């Protein structure tokens, strides 16, 4: 990413390529991912088959899209606990409009996008206006959305799910964009994997190469300092919340078009998986430091570990235990490296 300066400074010790690498927040997670990958490739047969790869990439993809957006937000110093439920809310809005009111799917998607952005902007606006921690504000939105999801679904359908998307007008074209598969080596991969890559690349470029990215680091690292040099803190943070909401809409759309039905309590609890993937990827909970690629890799670790355990055919009673040990191992293995980074960093 960065080219070394003409370093002939006697105050610099060893050339320090390693130290330079170590400074990148995502390095730790990359090593962790390699470890998990190697482990399951050796331990199980199916993990490395194209079918296997397709499965764990699929699992990681929607998580990854959200983790990347959440990572941006965390770099900006905020949390969004409503992100998980919002994936279900957007799917519900789309599904209700398309199946009950007979809207064209594309129109329904547009409407749910507007809805998602409204929620995101509201989150951001509340956080900035009230000065309350985003943890509390978005908790409120989280609970409110959760209630709305269930209440509205039951009101409209009498059940706790909305289904029947497949017969809605415009399903085929929208489904192609969000939920089709493409074939590599005879195996079908879901298009959500491409979305994930796209989102990661875009987020990475924005974060590292644009003014907005610079502001994101600044408002997360020290909002008063950023304000003092003229960074529009309010707008930046609101935009970050809106970005997260947009990602939630994307994932919601992928889900509703792929599964053609959506359950009212979907998405609950996933918000923490997003945060966890971002933190594994090197984001600081306190803001101001992190990377989009790291978050994507964090999601990959999650996906690989989750599916790897299934492939390894371990008793699924102990699933969480394996997952916990796996995660700890993945973050501990590069601990020496990370500490070195810490040491260099401050």
């Amino acid at each position: 990413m960065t080219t070394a300066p003409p370093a002939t400074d006697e105050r610099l010790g060893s050339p320090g390529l390693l130290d330079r690498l170590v400074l990148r927040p995502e390095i730790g997670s990359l090593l962790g991912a390699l470890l998990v990958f190697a482990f399951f490739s050796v331990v199980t047969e199916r993990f490395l088959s194209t079918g296997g790869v397709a499965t764990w990439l699929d699992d990681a993809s929607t998580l990854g899209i959200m983790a990347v957006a959440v990572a941006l937000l965390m770099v900006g110093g905020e949390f969004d606990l409503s992100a998980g439920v919002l994936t279900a809310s957007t799917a519900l809005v789309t599904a209700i409009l398309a199946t009950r009111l007979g809207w064209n799917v594309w129109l329904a998607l547009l409407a749910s996008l507007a809805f998602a952005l409204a929620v995101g902007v509201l989150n951001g606006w509340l956080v900035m206006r009230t000065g309350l921690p985003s943890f509390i504000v978005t908790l409120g939105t989280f609970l409110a959305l959760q209630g709305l999801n269930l209440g509205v679904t039951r009101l409209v359908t009498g059940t706790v799910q909305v289904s029947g998307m497949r017969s809605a007008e415009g399903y085929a074209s929208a489904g192609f964009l969000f939920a089709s598969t493409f074939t590599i080596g005879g195996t079908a991969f879901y298009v959500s994997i491409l979305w994930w890559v796209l989102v990661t690349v875009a987020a990475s470029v924005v974060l590292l190469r644009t003014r907005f990215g610079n502001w994101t680091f600044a408002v997360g690292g020290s909002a008063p300092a950023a304000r003092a040099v003229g960074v529009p803190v309010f707008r930046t943070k609101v935009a970050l919340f809106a970005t997260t909401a947009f990602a939630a809409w994307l994932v919601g759309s992928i889900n509703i078009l792929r599964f053609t039905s959506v359950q009212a309590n979907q998405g609950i609890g996933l918000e923490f998986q997003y945060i966890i993937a971002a933190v594994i990827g090197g984001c600081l909970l306190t803001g101001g430091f992190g990377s989009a690629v790291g978050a994507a890799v964090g999601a990959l670790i999650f996906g690989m570990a989750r599916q790897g355990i299934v492939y390894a055919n371990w008793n699924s009673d102990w699933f969480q235990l394996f997952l916990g040990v796996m995660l700890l191992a993945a973050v501990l293995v590069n601990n020496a490296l990370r500490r070195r980074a810490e040491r260099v960093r401050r």
Partner: protein
Amino acid sequence: ACSGPTATNTDSTNADGTGTGAAQAPTGDLRVAVISHGTAGDAFWNVVKNGATDAGRQLGVTVDYNSDGDPGRQATLVDNAVSQGVGGIVVSMANPDALKTSVENAVKAGIPVITINSGSERSAAFGALAHVGQEESVAGEQAGAKLREAGKATLLCVIHEAGNIGLNQRCDGARAGFGGTVSTLQVDINNPTDVEARIKGALQTDTSVDAVLALNPQVAVSAVNAVKGASSAAAVATFDLNADVTGAIKAGDVLFAVDQQQYEQGYLPIVMLKLYRDNANTVGGGKPVLTGPGFVDRSNVDEVAEYAERGTR
């Protein structure tokens, strides 16, 4: 809706309930608290709730439905109902020990209690009026037996909420009824991608699996996708119904759906409590009132589909 002086209903299972009730209603309106251990938004308990509220609407009974999957907090909800002085309590007893004190307190406070779903063998001991429903394990057992009949040898039972006692009882029952090899798989119901991916992974890993038992219609649909994705020949069976599942049954993707007729588990207790208050009737004679299980397969799916659509099956 409270009229009709000739309340001569017998204590049969005639539950049509329109216009029943007694003129000499002792304390006016009846308020019943229904407290289940289902998590909010659970498909099974949604139907129970619909049953209870429908009965309430038809009988002029106020029904408050609340639920909490944590046994302790379910007990607190019972305490809450007692302190509100409701006219009757309907409670599901997945965890009878945890509810013992609260239910007994309710009985002591003179509130008639009816237990539903599981907990039939402890129901009477706690002083409940009656039990409606059936142990989850029995339903599981019959599902297992039916799969066995279909000639399946290796079963994968998908638990979509780790540690949920009801789901575990279903799988344990299936193990007993099936006889062959049964393995369980934990998935996260809130994450549809994860559900499909994990079932697919399990099918790819163990190619001998020829039957998948889902415990939730949403999971069933994912299981169908997973079976296709893994190019497996496994048959899918499920608990409960939704529009997608009825479609899949018609299409032959799902073998059958276990229907516990849980609508009755919500509906009947309201009727029973109303009868008990107005006419001191009891039902079941100390034996549990069984609601199921029934099976929905190709033969009867057309008939049931529309009920499932509106959330009563």
